[in-house]
């Protein structure tokens, strides 16, 4: 039977139109007339914007340590401005010769934060590590002990201040928010009402009004003569603000737990706090970690609002860096620089929270 092939035909490469770069482009860019139009539009947009942007950012940019006159002549970005002023941007008004202290403090807190991202370290002793870290952080910044020169809080500034407001904010707000969340789910009407009222009141108003309240009203609330530091006042406002958001996140975690967990705990004869500590909270908090990281991310961005009440955080320090009339026109470079700092922190946090969401999503679902 000659018309039946008795061996396999050699494998042919796929048609050129469907493989390789061309095939990929066909499948992903030009698979319909609408997509083709979109692609062409996007390409046009990219060609119009990207090359000039790259030229401005890199090729025509001034990189050397030169004065504003040279920059004014150039067509590109003036990175020498950042090179000259980066310490003012990063540390604000912190005494120049003492800036190694906030630097060490930042390295410390960022490394502890990175270590806490590893799930193996999610142990009770981590809480102790964090308390110690925050304590060391504030001591390093404030000084006054171990031969460190005291530095008044008015001088704290830049990234160290931003990090402190965010980390201390979330650390102190966390226990408060657990209590609020439990209170909101409690069946004691008065406690529930108080917690709901607090949470909804704070979530209903913008952070800036809380900051104004902290800076204008808090001094009136104190017994006559007691004055609170401006930084601490802002910190209190941030704690109050973030605790209500965290409480809602944790409540979400509590609600996500199957009812059986509560029933099982009751069956074992555990008291309310035993049940919360041993059964409910460990699970609820684990589920809540990704949204907690997201809340933290939001808080990290929101700390920039303290610039409005004149605390020299990263954003205000940046604005002060180009207050010099000679450098005023280079604000774009300064903003790009700090935007990059904020972006790196926030982007990796959001990626981490997405990663956790995938990893932690293995347990029970609603």
């Amino acid at each position, binding site marked *: 039977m000659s018309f039946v092939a008795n061996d396999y035909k050699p494998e042919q490469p796929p048609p050129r139109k469907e493989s390789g770069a061309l095939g990929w482009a066909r499948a992903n860019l030009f698979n319909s007339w609408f997509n083709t139009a979109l692609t062409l539009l996007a390409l046009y947009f990219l060609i119009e914007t990207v090359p000039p942007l790259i030229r401005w950012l890199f090729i025509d940019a001034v990189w050397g340590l030169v004065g504003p006159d040279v920059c004014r002549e150039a067509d590109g970005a003036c990175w020498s401005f950042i090179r000259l002023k980066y310490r003012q941007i990063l540390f604000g008004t912190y005494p120049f010769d003492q800036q190694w202290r906030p630097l060490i403090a930042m390295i410390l807190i960022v490394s502890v934060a990175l270590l806490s991202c590893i799930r193996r370290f999610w142990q009770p002793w981590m809480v102790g590590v964090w308390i110690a870290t925050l304590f060391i952080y504030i001591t390093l910044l404030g000084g006054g002990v171990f031969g460190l020169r005291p530095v008044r809080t008015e001088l704290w500034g830049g990234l160290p201040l931003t990090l402190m407001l965010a980390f201390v904010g979330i650390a102190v707000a966390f226990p408060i928010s657990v209590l609020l969340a439990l209170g909101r789910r409690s069946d004691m009407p008065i406690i529930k009402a108080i917690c709901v009222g607090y949470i909804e009141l704070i979530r209903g108003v913008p952070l800036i009004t809380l900051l104004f309240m902290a800076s204008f009203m808090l001094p*009136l609330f*104190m*017994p006559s003569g007691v004055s609170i530091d401006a930084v601490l006042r802002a910190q209190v406002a941030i704690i109050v603000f973030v605790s209500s958001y965290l409480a809602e996140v944790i409540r979400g975690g509590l609600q996500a737990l199957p009812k059986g967990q509560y029933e099982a705990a009751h069956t074992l004869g555990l008291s309310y706090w035993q049940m919360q500590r041993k059964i409910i909270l460990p699970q609820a908090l684990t589920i809540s970690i990704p949204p907690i990281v997201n809340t933290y991310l939001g808080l990290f961005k929101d700390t920039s*609002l303290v610039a409005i009440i004149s605390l020299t955080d990263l954003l205000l320090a940046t604005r002060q860096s180009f207050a010099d009339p000679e450098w005023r026109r280079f604000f774009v470079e300064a903003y790009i620089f700090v935007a990059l700092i904020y972006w790196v922190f926030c982007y990796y946090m959001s990626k981490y929270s997405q990663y956790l969401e995938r990893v932690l999503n293995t347990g029970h679902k609603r």
Partner: protein
Amino acid sequence: MAEQAARRGGAGPGPRESTAFLRDPRIRAIIYQVLVLGGVILLAVYLVSNTMTNLEQRSIRTGFGFLQSEAGFYIGETTLVNYAASDSYGRAFLVGISNTLRVALIGIVLATILGTIAGVARLSSNWLIAKLASIYVEVMRNVPLLLQLFFWYGLISAALPASRDAVAILPGTYLSRSGLQYPAPIAHWIHPWMLLSILVALGACYAYYRWAKQKQAQTGVEPRLFLPFVGFLLGFPVIVWLIGGAPMAVDMPELGAFRLVGGAAMSPEFLALLLGLTFYTAGFIAEIVRAGILAVPWGQTEAASSLGLKRSFVLRLVLLPQALRIIIPPTTSQFLNLTKNSSLAVAIGYPDLVSVGNTTLNQTGQAIECISIMMACYLFFSLSISFFMNWYNKNIALVER
């Protein structure tokens, strides 16, 4: 749990019985609540008494009486409420509220449109578009809004031409460092009636929609909706305008001594705030839209297709109703966030509620009253948006069977 505790308490010998009632959860609950309530009240009393002493000691005025006294300062932008420096502080607050609402409402509409486009674009089968959209989303979400606002504001004032050299982007519409100036019709008695007629047109749309649905239920043919709607919404005001004698007078921006005067204007502060809020919030809405669409199982699309529905019907009748159910609640909270974030206007000098409140605070020194007013207004906005959205949510939600 009640029996349990009672049993444990009751089982104990003699001395335990005296504490038995403490182990009753109901009694303990009451004790806890009394303690907490007492603590809160004590704290409140402490703070209030401190405040009263301080206010008295420092002879700071109290009370809301100042709202009636003359403000004495000008406000740069007064769109909806007429205001002059001789008006009262109360009226100044009204201007602030109207300015907040103005930027928030326009921002919500624009952010929803942009966010939906970006969210759908991220799911596009077009690789380039999807990438561009995701870059947009990642940049917007991860840079503080305040920084973006400063950036936009700086850019607007640096990139636009000086006020006297305004460029015309459309005939009669100019862009410069004084903002966007455009022709505005000179006030005429018919204008309020035209606004009213739009409301009537909305009512007509609703009535027509009900009729169309009924007709569809009876005959199976769905009458056209789009054209009649446009007809109502445009036709009614035009008819009223014609009845009013078709007033054509328009106030055109013209070059004055320093800048273009006349017409209506959007200040650079307003534009920067609007741009910032829109781009920032759209980044979040995009993610919500994307998640919402992804959350509808693929089987729904397949099932709808196997029923022989057209692609556009699949989207409109099957996918969207389900996706919207997931999208609406988080979008509501984004709308709330946008409204609250509009308070950052104070940093770039747009006279919103917080900015006006802050000025009043500085001129009168009455911090408690001014901040309370601000907070109360935002609470009111928040509560009304969430009530409205809850109501809408209830209407749109599919009844699960």
